[in-house]
């Protein structure tokens, strides 16, 4: 029998990093920047948080952590790490007008390497027996849920057993949706992504909007990495454990046709599909498991095909996505 009450929270926890990634990437893409560096940025967000909390835990030398700092330090270092990645991307693509695809892919390679390099260094510093760094004390603060652990009503299990970063992800997605569709900054940002020349002629600072959207987007995506390691993985960093979630986050952007509010449900769906193979009894047939693991990607492909078939203008990517803007071009 399929156990929904235990499946759903796992799906949500799988989905939250994807939701952060896709919210950040939607904001970025709305400014016309196709940031394929998101997987790398999420890695950097995660390892930066780990580095921050590692040194904080070390400095306390076994003393109990101050709750405020235990959360603020990893958060701040994670945000700083992904902000720097976003800035680098903007400097290359907006200021120097480098090709966005190439820059993004390079940042992903760089980010993963950066994460593994410093991950490896920390593992050495910690003199760990296993190839991982454990930060249980910090993780305990990120793991705190609104419901007491002993509360086991279905409602509480389904909705109240998550750390604060999970709720923040959903709030951010809702805020993003509101800002993009209902406010003037959102209107201006969408104009920049659709037609920078139009925005420019209307007196909107294209460069500033692209920088802001991309950097904030990167920081949001980076939080996805932080959530993964501090909450989902209980504070245990091991190299490459984050896997290909960053790419799934980008797939999610297309899947939700650039709508952060849809992304909330879609990320849970993707998270569910990602772990579905654990809940479907396949016995010893490993190859069937692998087929189940394909599902999120297959569904993204199907959505891509459907969206391109429908040709509805509102469902298309921002018109100038992936293109650099240069005003005095003649």
């Amino acid at each position, binding site marked *: 029998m399929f156990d929904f009450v235990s499946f759903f929270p796992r799906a949500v926890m799988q989905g939250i990093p994807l939701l952060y990634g896709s919210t950040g990437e939607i904001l970025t893409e709305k400014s016309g920047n196709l940031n394929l560096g998101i997987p790398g940025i999420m890695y950097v967000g995660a390892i930066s948080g780990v580095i921050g909390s590692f040194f904080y835990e070390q400095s306390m030398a076994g003393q109990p952590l101050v709750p405020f700092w235990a959360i603020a330090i990893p958060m701040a270092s994670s945000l700083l790490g992904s902000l720097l990645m976003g800035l680098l991307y903007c400097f290359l693509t907006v200021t120097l007008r480098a090709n966005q695809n190439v820059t993004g892919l390079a940042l992903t390679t760089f980010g993963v390497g950066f994460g593994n390099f410093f991950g490896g260094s920390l593992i050495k510093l910690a003199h760990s027996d296993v190839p991982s760094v454990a930060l249980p004390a910090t993780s305990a603060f990120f793991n705190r849920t609104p419901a007491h652990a002993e509360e086991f009503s279905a409602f509480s299990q389904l909705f109240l057993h998550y750390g604060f970063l999970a709720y923040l992800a959903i709030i951010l997605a809702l805020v993003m949706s509101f800002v993009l569709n*209902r*406010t*003037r900054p959102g*209107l*201006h940002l*969408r*104009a920049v992504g*659709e*037609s920078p*020349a*139009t*925005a*420019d*002629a*209307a*007196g*909107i600072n294209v460069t500033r909007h692209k920088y802001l959207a991309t950097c904030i987007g990167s920081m949001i995506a980076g939080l996805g990495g932080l959530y993964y390691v501090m909450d989902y993985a209980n504070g245990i960093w091991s190299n490459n454990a984050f896997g290909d979630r960053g790419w799934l986050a980008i797939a999610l952007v297309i899947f939700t046709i650039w709508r952060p509010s849809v992304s909330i449900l879609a990320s849970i769906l993707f998270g569910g599909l990602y772990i579905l193979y654990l809940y479907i009894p396949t016995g010893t047939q490993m190859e069937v498991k692998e087929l189940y693991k394909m599902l999120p990607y297959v569904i993204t492909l199907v959505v891509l095909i459907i969206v391109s078939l429908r*040709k509805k*203008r*509102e469902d*298309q990517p921002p*018109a100038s996505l992936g293109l650099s803007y240069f*005003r*005095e071009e*003649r």
Partner: protein
Amino acid sequence: METVKNAVRMENITKRFGTKVVANKSVNLELHEGEILSLLGENGSGKTTLMNMLSGIYHPDEGQIYIHDKPVTISSPKDAFDNGIGMIHQHFKLVDVFTATENIVLGLPGKLDLKESSRKIREICERYGFDIDPNQKIYNMSVSQKQTVEIVKVLFRGADILILDEPTAVLTPQETDNLFRIMRNMQKDGKSLIIITHKLHEVLAVSDRVAILRKGEYIGDVMTKNADQQSLTDMMVGRRVSLNINRPAPVDPKPRLVVEHLTAYDELGVKRLDDVSFTANSGEVLGIAGIAGSGQRELLEAIAGLYPVKEGTIRFYDPDVDYSDPNKKPIDLVGMDPMTIRKAGVAMSFVPEDRLGMGLVGTMGMTGNMLLRSWRKTKGLFVSRKEPEAMAKRIWQELDVVTPSTNYPVRRLSGGNVQKVLVGREIAQEPAVLMTAYAVRGLDINTSYTIYNLLTEQKLKGRAVIYVGEDLDVLLELCDRIVVLCGGQVSGVVDGRTITKEEIGLLMTQHRGGTSHE
């Protein structure tokens, strides 16, 4: 003497691009309050550049701009708005997926209140006689509606100085009249307007005064009431230009291309061509008239093998074949692609509407673009650049193309020169049928006449020339016969020598059922 107040005064404006190109050289221009000023000049004479400095797109290298006699620095579009200047660009600056209202309020500060804004927009529309729905999406709008949105946009910002960059290039005669009516309404309301246009009769119809630029320099101004087409052209070009199109009688007209019952649908299943039938004869220029989007593009592309045909035939009669022999049959082009058409021995040339998209490769030079047409003629693994180089040189000289070398990217040439390269190449193929779509769109008067003469030359050589045009005056002067399209149907095939402009205008808006002249 009456004292005039200046809305705009530009003093000694110079703008360079790079070190070589001087777009404007010490230009002095005045716009009086409450007048409509025409800014006239050939392609590349720096009109748009000059106006872009008023609207904050470019910044002048030298010189001073005064608005209402106050010296100002305009370094961004926002500065321009703040000074009450609004520019309606030739290429609309609108976001397709936004509504009219969203586009109009774009860039303004304050809280976003689309309802209130829509109300204000309706108010402006009523005041000046615009007809748009503020909640309609731009991609659902016609070109003329988009232009209206652009104009409302600048009025919404409270602009009292409006600059219109070739606003009529994309409009039908009726829409143009309507625009002029609105421009006069704005003038009555105290606004000052500058209009850039190539069409002299429009200059004469709408403006109070004409200012003329030539090669980036200010030549002078003249009151419209003291000017006529000839005097304006002479000032613009700098020498006397003949404004008559020579139209010799058709040479031995025989059917060359017979189109019958042609019907075609686009990818969304919308009927674009509906039972179109006509004959293009050798030795004559066949005009195709119609409101933009009436099926002109689809028709030419269908003939060229680029557009899928659902029903009908396109029969090609080879000039070298004697069809009195019952064994000889004309070639049906339906279902062929451009390659098979060429292989079947049909010499056809097509000058498409989208010069740099379909016609030429922008980043290649003249030689490279010639090569695109000729490489198949050379055998073996390697292509020879000799022949195309020679052809490029010939076109360069004969058509007076302004380019530093035959290897200079054609994308960087001005519109008129790009068109000369394209038309030159296509004519050099010695086609039996020459099709041109909007061959003079965006070209200045001098280049336009060069193109007309080239087409007439082709006709005298016994070729069938098909000319899709938008300027009715030219169609009437150039073409021997005119096919009028309306909504994908042929609403009439008329004699270019006897029909009047009004009759064609009527046919352009009239579906089949009206009387047709032959």
